[in-house]
């Protein structure tokens, strides 16, 4: 196979891939290729026709499609090479890439650096093990959204939704706008995982009830969904079957979580985190393979696309620095690992190298339950390195904590930087 040499190869042409590409381009790298499996750039943003995007990044309230358009406009002004309808089959530790498309067939690339930006996928019914029949009309929010906004089809007219995260809420509203009835939204937790504004604007404003502490315990219907059984759950999130009741509907839409998409990373032998599902990265967003970076929802699932852009710009810049040999390779690494403490899950990055990268590190993490007037802290043993007061913290919203590398002070080899949220 003929191998084409490139500087940076980016897997995925959604928000993360485009943002990383633009950032690397801005730092002087010219030979960049983006592989995108769809026929268009923009990824899932293209099916997000609702607003709420871009407030942090562009100081504007945009729809997902507008947000994508802004990035695409910038990309086409550059000579970044775009390979749409192209799927990456494999990457290797040596940063060789095999891709395939109808137009160009099997193609090989040798990159100086790779940025993984594959986004995420949705948890399916199969993973939840919801008992019952397997009729048409059970689908995930993203699939329903794609049918609705890209293809122009409505998956049902009487919809029950499981999961009150942002996607669930937004789809609830859109079903109503498209003339369907949303019977209710069930949420297994005592609170919604979605943004406060979405709970109000998408459910409350449309009179759609949210049943908290409730889950779906059965699917009924031979060929097409005829209804679902729902039950209250106890404090361990286990269904209380004595409360089981039937709800008439023709569709069950699942919005029950996102999983970083890392099949290629897994095949390449990149070390993945059990907690985030994404690669283990340092504060330059570099994986355990030198020169391979990860950003966006394939690194960890974000709440807002703005933060995907911001994070991916970091990955793009560091990929450029890596190629330009500007990463301080002469200095000995001085690494400390991060660690989820009380109230926190999925801290990224997993490692901080005090002798490399930027002076300021941004720790990103999610609260593992709902907190009011709390403090997020990062400490080494009992020594607090950084802390921040927060009026409210919920699992649906990502928290960040900035630390200056000069503030770390001395630490022992096995010490860890523990991130926690204290009420």
């Amino acid at each position, binding site marked *: 196979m003929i191998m084409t040499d490139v500087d940076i190869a980016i897997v995925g042409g959604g928000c993360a891939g485009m943002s990383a590409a633009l950032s690397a381009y801005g730092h002087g790298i010219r030979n960049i290729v983006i592989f995108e*499996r769809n026929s268009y750039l923009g990824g899932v943003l293209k099916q997000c026709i609702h607003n709420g995007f871009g407030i942090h990044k562009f100081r504007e309230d945009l729809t997902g499609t507008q947000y994508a358009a802004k990035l695409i406009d910038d990309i086409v002004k550059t000579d970044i090479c775009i390979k749409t309808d192209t799927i990456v089959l494999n990457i290797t530790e040596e940063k060789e890439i095999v891709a395939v498309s109808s*137009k160009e067939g099997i193609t090989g690339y040798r990159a100086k650096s790779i940025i993984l930006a594959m986004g995420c996928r949705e948890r399916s019914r199969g993973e939840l093990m919801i008992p019952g029949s397997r009729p048409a009309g059970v689908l995930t929010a993203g699939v329903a959204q794609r049918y609705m906004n890209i293809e122009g089809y*409505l998956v049902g007219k009487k919809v029950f939704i499981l999961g009150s995260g942002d996607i669930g809420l937004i789809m609830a509203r859109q079903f109503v706008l498209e003339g369907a009835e949303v019977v209710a939204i069930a949420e297994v937790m005592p609170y919604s995982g979605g943004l406060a504004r979405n709970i109000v604007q998408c459910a409350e404003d449309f009179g759609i009830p949210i049943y908290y502490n409730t889950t779906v315990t059965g699917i009924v219907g031979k*060929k097409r969904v005829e209804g679902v059984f729902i039950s209250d759950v106890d404090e361990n999130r286990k269904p209380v079957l004595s409360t089981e009741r039937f709800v008439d509907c023709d569709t069950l839409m699942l919005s029950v979580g996102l999983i970083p998409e890392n099949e290629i990373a897994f095949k390449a032998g990149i070390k993945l985190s059990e907690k985030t599902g994404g690669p283990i990265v340092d504060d330059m967003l570099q994986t355990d393979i030198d020169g391979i970076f990860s950003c966006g929802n394939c690194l960890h699932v974000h709440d807002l696309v703005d933060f995907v852009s911001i994070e991916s710009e970091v990955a793009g810049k560091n990929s450029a620095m890596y190629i330009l040999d500007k990463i301080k390779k002469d200095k000995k690494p001085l690494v400390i690992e991060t660690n989820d403490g009380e109230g926190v899950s999925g801290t990224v990055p997993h490692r901080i190298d005090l002798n490399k990268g930027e002076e300021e590190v941004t720790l990103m993490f999610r609260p593992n339950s709902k907190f009011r007037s709390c403090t997020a802290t990062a400490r080494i043993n009992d020594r607090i390195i950084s802390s921040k007061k927060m009026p409210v913290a919920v699992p649906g919203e990502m928290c960040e904590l900035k630390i200056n590398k000069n503030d770390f002070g001395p630490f022992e080899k096995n010490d860890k930087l523990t991130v926690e949220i204290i009420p």
Partner: protein
Amino acid sequence: MDRNILFFKTGVSMYDAIVIGSGVSGASVARELSRYKLKIAVLEKGDDVCSGTSKGNSAVVHSGYDARYGTNKAHYNVIGNAMYDNLCHELSVPFVRNGTITYALSEEEVEKLQELTENAKKNKVPGVKLLNRKELEEVGGDFGAEVCGGLWAPTGGVVCPYNLVIAMCENAAENGVEFFLNTEVNHIEKEAIGYSIKTNRGEFISKIVFNCAGTHADEMNNFVSSEKLKIIPRKGNYLILDRKLSGKVKNTIFQAPKKLPGGGHTKGMVMVPTVDGTIILGCDSTDVDDKDDVSTTREGIEAVYQYFSENWKNFPVSREIPEFPKKMIISSYAGLRAHSVTDDFIIGEVKDAEGFFNMAGIESPGLTAAPAIAAELVSEVSKKYIFEINPAFNPLRKIPKQFRDMNDEERIKALERDKNYGKIICRCEEVTKAEILQAINSIIPAKSVNAIKMRTRAGMGRCQGGYCGPEIVSIISEETGIPITEITLSGEDSFIVPYETCIPGEI
């Protein structure tokens, strides 16, 4: 042969032989019949072949140590097992003889395995051995500390059951057998010219009828015979683990058989490494009333889940993956076994209904045994009715290699032939548009999303159709001309996207 006759017909049609059902029994019989110069019809009530019992089971080709000596089950299991290498070779179906281990946790269980070893000897199962802890380790790897021995059956294997059944049906169709889908038998009457089979799609007449109706085989028999049969559907639930674990489980591993409260025993829970790299865990066993209801049950799923959570440590895979990997569960399913109250296969001509042949009560080890039963049964029938050999019969079903099994060189060549190999539709299972088009245009056309899934594995991976679902719907529509809103998951009114979004001003 006219490729478009398979779905609909009306009026009265005459056939030399009619097969009711297209599961592993019906498919085996149809293929055996196609060796002769006959006009043959298969009647299937589902929207696709293999849409009943044969679709959901443990995928194990049993060695035959378990079936009680002297029964039909034992006899045909052992013969059927031996046929599998050649059968799967002829049909281009992956088959792996990975060997079966049944492990024991106590002396009592070892004794039970000792009984099975003796039973295996009588059944003439090749190579079965009772192994002590050390010997077991050499054969099957490092079992948990509590495991004290195991029964080794080297001829045990795995096959994809629907892949096999679809292949047999396609081969039968290539050899002239006509398949009528969505065709449900409502009544059968014996008339002077033969059996009159009344269906929702008209009347079929034949002197020779094979009853391969799975859980409904008793109804078919009882239409024509005073010797009534009773088939009890017995449900089992299964979990499927991600292909990421491919290669981590080598043998099919059973727990020691458990006595059932009502007498007899069940093979119990089993861990099966499938030919496709996933791992099947199952199953419980519960008698149910509905002969078509393959809903999973909470109790069943929980029983399987709990068993493997608690006993994971006994399996060699636990050395590498210490805890039951919950996150690797990608799906669950349930299957029905057509259990006869006589607890054995019911095979042969019905005493008071000449020309009506039963292949009933084909429960485990039915998948293994069916090809053997069909071969023997059809051979006998051919002698009785003096069938003429079909000189054009071709036992080979050739299919192009799947993209996921190709190396880079083969992929480049495939793409030169057909650019659709460059369009990957199912990311998880690496299924290309070329393979989906092949399924749609195959001799028994796949026109529903599930029919395509069964033939290509598109949608069977970890995302469960999250990415490929909409793509497949639009490919079916493009290729067949069926409007998007009428594309189904599995026939009838299982529409996936029944409505268009509203046009402004329409609400």
